[in-house]
Every structure is written in structure tokens, then in C-alpha cells.
């Protein structure tokens, strides 16, 4: 017996370890929102380094852009002045629309606005793999955050917190393959589940007969209790209908440009 064990030592060790790691992974899959001690320790110790690297890169970039690389400054200045005028005009238009909107809301007694406190946070790191889509923010338990809180940017939904440490948190982006959010097509109120596909999104379970068109805005439906209702999520890019399929194939582009994401807001309050 001992001889047998000693002969197949390598094979036995390999099988035992492999089984142990698969069990560990399966167990952690069930505990998706729980942050293990190890993960918390790594997040805690790495956050200052990531913040430091981010700060150093920002300083170098700012010095380069503001003091060294001034080749197109004058030309850019003219363009910016032009853009400024255009934006002022748009702002006035927007204010007018906003006032009109307010009046209409009061008139129709239609209350559907987000009224929750939010906490600003800075993005200090990204995912260390090419297939997962997560970011690390510089706020954690100490700032009152917890697992599952929704994270948004000015353009729309970013994702939700999945791991948390005292001073940092990991956010699962809506473009991650394991992310699924209940959504509505804003124009027609058609329901679907929006899943991440790396760069863009796909809408599952949108019925074949439902009216969805290119350019439609997808918003959160509020189902599931993570994201408040009505937050912008993505714009429909393409719609395909197979002859024999129950559902149509919809692809959408997130409203948030994740390649330029620097500041985000974490929605901390509950529904009123």
C-alpha cells in the first residue's frame, strides 16, 4: 500500500489539489458578494500603491500636457473657444427644456426621479486580466459603502460593488460577462436582460415581436433591487430577428465610455 502511495504520489497530490481548488472556486461562486479575508487583505494593502501609481501617472501626464507638449495649444484654444460658445448655447437650451420638464412633471404629478444620496469616488485601478471587466475605486467600508451598491457616472450606469475593503472597493462593470441587469427600452418599455460582452452589451429575452429600433435608449427597470429605475444604460446598436427564434438578437453600446472613466458616484441610499 505504502509502495503504491509512494509510486503514485504525484498523481494523487495533483488530483487532491485540483479537486480542492475546484471546490474552493465553486464555493466562492456561491458567495459572490462576500469578500474573503485574503481578498480584503490584498485590496487593503494594494490600494495605497494603486493610488500612488495613479497619482504619479497623473502628475507626469499633467506636467507633460501643461508645460511640455504645447505644440497645438493655440489651435486648440481657438477650437475650445468655439466649442465654448456652442456649449453655452446648448446649456441655455437645456435649461429651457429642464424648466419645461419641471412644469410638465408638476402638471402630470409624475414622480419618477432618483432621490438618493450618492458618494463620489475615484477610479484607482482596473482588472488585471483581459477577459474580466472590473475597476477599483478609492472608497470602501470606511466611507459607508457595502457590497451590492450601484455605481454610476454622469452618462449612466457603471456597475455594482462586488468586493469591499476598508478604503477601496471592486466594481463589476456592466460590460463584464457575468453581469446581468434587468432593463427597459425607454421608448416602448420592452423588457429584457442586458448582459456584458466585453466592449458592448447584448439584450437577452427581448421578445421577437417587441418594438426595438437602433438608437433606442435602454434604462434600468428597477427589478432586482440593485439599480434604481430609469438610469440610462446603453444605446441599441443593432437588432436582428431570426425566422424561427422566440427572441430577437439585440446589441447595445454602453452610454458610459469605460476607457475614460476617472470619477464615479456610488449610490448609497435606499429607495425612498
Amino acid at each position, binding site marked *: 500500500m505504502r509502495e503504491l502511495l509512494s509510486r503514485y504520489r504525484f498523481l494523487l497530490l495533483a488530483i487532491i489539489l485540483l479537486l480542492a481548488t475546484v471546490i474552493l472556486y465553486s464555493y466562492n461562486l456561491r458567495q459572490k458578494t462576500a469578500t474573503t479575508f485574503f481578498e480584503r487583505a490584498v485590496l487593503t494593502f494594494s490600494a495605497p500603491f494603486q493610488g500612488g501609481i495613479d497619482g504619479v501617472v497623473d502628475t507626469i501626464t499633467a506636467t507633460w500636457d501643461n508645460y511640455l507638449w504645447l505644440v497645438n495649444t493655440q489651435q486648440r484654444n481657438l477650437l475650445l473657444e468655439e466649442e465654448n460658445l456652442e456649449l453655452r448655447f446648448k446649456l441655455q437650451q437645456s435649461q429651457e427644456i429642464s424648466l419645461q420638464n419641471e412644469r410638465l412633471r408638476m402638471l402630470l404629478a409624475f414622480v419618477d426621479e432618483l432621490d438618493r444620496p450618492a458618494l463620489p469616488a475615484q477610479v484607482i485601478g482596473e482588472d488585471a486580466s483581459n477577459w*474580466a471587466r*472590473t475597476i477599483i475605486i478609492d472608497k470602501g467600508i470606511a466611507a459607508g459603502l457595502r457590497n451590492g451598491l450601484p455605481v454610476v457616472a454622469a452618462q449612466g450606469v457603471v456597475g455594482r460593488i462586488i468586493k469591499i475593503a476598508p478604503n477601496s472597493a471592486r466594481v463589476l462593470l456592466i460590460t463584464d460577462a457575468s453581469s446581468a441587469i434587468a432593463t427597459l427600452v425607454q421608448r416602448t418599455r420592452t423588457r429584457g436582460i442586458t448582459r456584458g460582452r466585453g466592449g458592448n452589451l447584448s439584450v437577452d429575452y427581448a421578445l421577437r415581436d417587441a418594438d426595438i429600433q437602433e438608437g433606442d435608449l435602454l434604462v434600468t427597470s428597477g427589478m432586482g433591487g440593485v439599480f434604481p429605475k430609469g438610469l440610462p444604460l446603453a444605446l441599441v446598436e443593432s437588432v436582428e430577428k431570426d425566422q424561427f427564434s422566440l427572441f430577437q438578437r439585440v446589441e447595445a453600446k454602453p452610454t458610459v465610455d469605460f476607457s475614460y472613466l476617472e470619477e464615479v458616484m456610488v449610490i448609497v441610499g435606499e429607495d425612498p
Partner: protein
Amino acid sequence: MRGFFLFMFAGAFFALLQSSLLPLLLPPNWRPNLILILILYLGLSENLSRALIAGLLLGAIQDSFCGPSLGLYISVYLIIILATRLLSDQLNIESPPLLLLLIAGGTLLQNFLIGFYLTIFADAAPVLHILLPAIPQQLLTNIIFATALLFMLLRFQRLFGYRSGLAGLMYQSKHHGS
């Protein structure tokens, strides 16, 4: 022991680099997996028990820096280390081109395993749409970075000597499997 801690330090440094600096410079598909390169080197150069412990810890570090669940990279790296050990007994691991071929094989195996685990266990089949198109870029980037790292490593060996604690191919090959 010094070599073990050096591996751990290098792994933590690579993880920080991959999550902080590289995303600012390279798009997702062109970012190398430096920890995978370290794992393959570990599988070739260290003895089995040390390679397994270091591999599991490096997997846990990488899991903490990416994806939603702990355990994926621990398992993937364990398989890669075991596969590397099985192969290393049959191959001349001192040949640099062969090492680069191993990096390519390791990259393919890693992508296959991640795809398999996420599809079977995590019900995240859309990840295949992310993984598959990225494989050519991943192969190229990992090979380029592995070449650079190998070049630097051999330089360091010449500078500090083969017995200074830095696990190196030339020195370790004489003690392989001990």
C-alpha cells in the same frame, strides 16, 4: 526560501502593474499576463512542492485583482504548473525558443481553462466572446513580454551570479526536481 519570496514579491508587483499602470498604456487585449509568465517559469525552475505553494498563492493574488470570484486562477495556475512539470521532464528547458513556445502553450491553456471554468461553473458563457478574439493579441503580447523578461533575467544572472538566490534556468536545470 529567498527565491520563494522573490517570486511572491514579483507576483504582487506584476499584479499591481497589471491593474494600475498597464491599463493606462495598453488596451485590454494587448495587456500581457505577467503572472502567467512567472507561473510558467516557476513550474520549470522550482521544485514541485515550492512551485505548487507559490503557484497557489500567486493564483490567489491574481484572483484578488481580477474577476468576481476567488479560486479561478488558483485552479487554473495549479493545472498549468502540473502540466509544465510533466512537460519539463521531456523537454530541453534551457532552449529559449522552446521556452517561448511554452509561453504560447501556457497562454492557450490558460484561455481554454478560464473559458471552460466560467462557462461550466459560473454560467458566464458570453466570456467566450471576449476571450476568443483576444487570443492572437494575447499570444503576441505574452511572447514579447516574456522575451523581454527572459533577456532581463539572463542579464541579472550574469550580474549577480548564478547562486545569488535568483532562480535561473541555467543554475536550476542542474537541480531540477530536487
